[in-house]
């Protein structure tokens, strides 16, 4: 078993076009580091310093990790982590 990470179209150039990749770890931060070891550069598109970038939404199963524990959110085998680009904007 592993943790499934679902990748949006815009980031599939880091995964050779794959929609999903697998990884391991006990927190979201560990999972992203593990996946980044095989798909270099992906983590940087999602994380800025110690925080998730505001341009992306990351979900653990059906929950937005911003409402869980951010990068420290615990993850386990069998979980699905989904990344979507945030859709946002404004007038300035």
């Amino acid at each position, binding site marked *: 078993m592993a943790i499934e990470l679902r990748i949006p179209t*815009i980031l599939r150039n880091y995964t050779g076009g794959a929609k999903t990749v697998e990884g391991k770890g006990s927190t979201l931060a560990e999972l992203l580091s593990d996946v980044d070891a095989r798909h270099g550069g992906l983590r940087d598109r999602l994380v800025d310093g110690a925080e998730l970038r505001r341009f992306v939404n990351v*979900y653990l199963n059906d929950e937005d990790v911003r409402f869980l524990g951010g990068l420290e959110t615990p993850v386990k085998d069998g979980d699905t982590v989904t990344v979507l680009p945030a*859709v*946002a904007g404004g007038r300035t």
Partner: protein
Amino acid sequence: MLTLSAELQARIVAHARADHPDEACGVIAGPAGSDRPERFIPMTNAERSPTFYRFDSLEQLRVWREMDDRDEEPVVIYHSHTATGAYPSRTDVSYASEPEAHYVLVSTRDPEQAEFRSFRIVEGVVTEEDVEIIAPGGPGSGGGTRDAGGGRVPAAE
């Protein structure tokens, strides 16, 4: 060029008018790879703001999964500007992350005439495109009208 039915255009404008003075936002989904906007999906502006919009993140997850299951993609991503023109702002450009999508902007600052324009936003570069509105009856009926970018849509009766 964006090709859109008159009905879908009217629904976008109606949504923008209904949420005015807050910004309205949503998606029109279509079959993946078709470039055909078909399924109108108004989204909640989680910011409920006249100056900013953001898709509600949980609603977005649900809608994106549904599109995935139906082999659809977001062909149009629309939002309104309620006090400025229908042109992507710097913030709009910085967030734009769907290079295949048509980014539709509607301005509702004029209560009589909505401004309706469409753009591609790829790697920070904004390119306006023509909007072709297909009148009821559809293409081939002779009812299609071509409306260059910067189109104005009169208020509904």
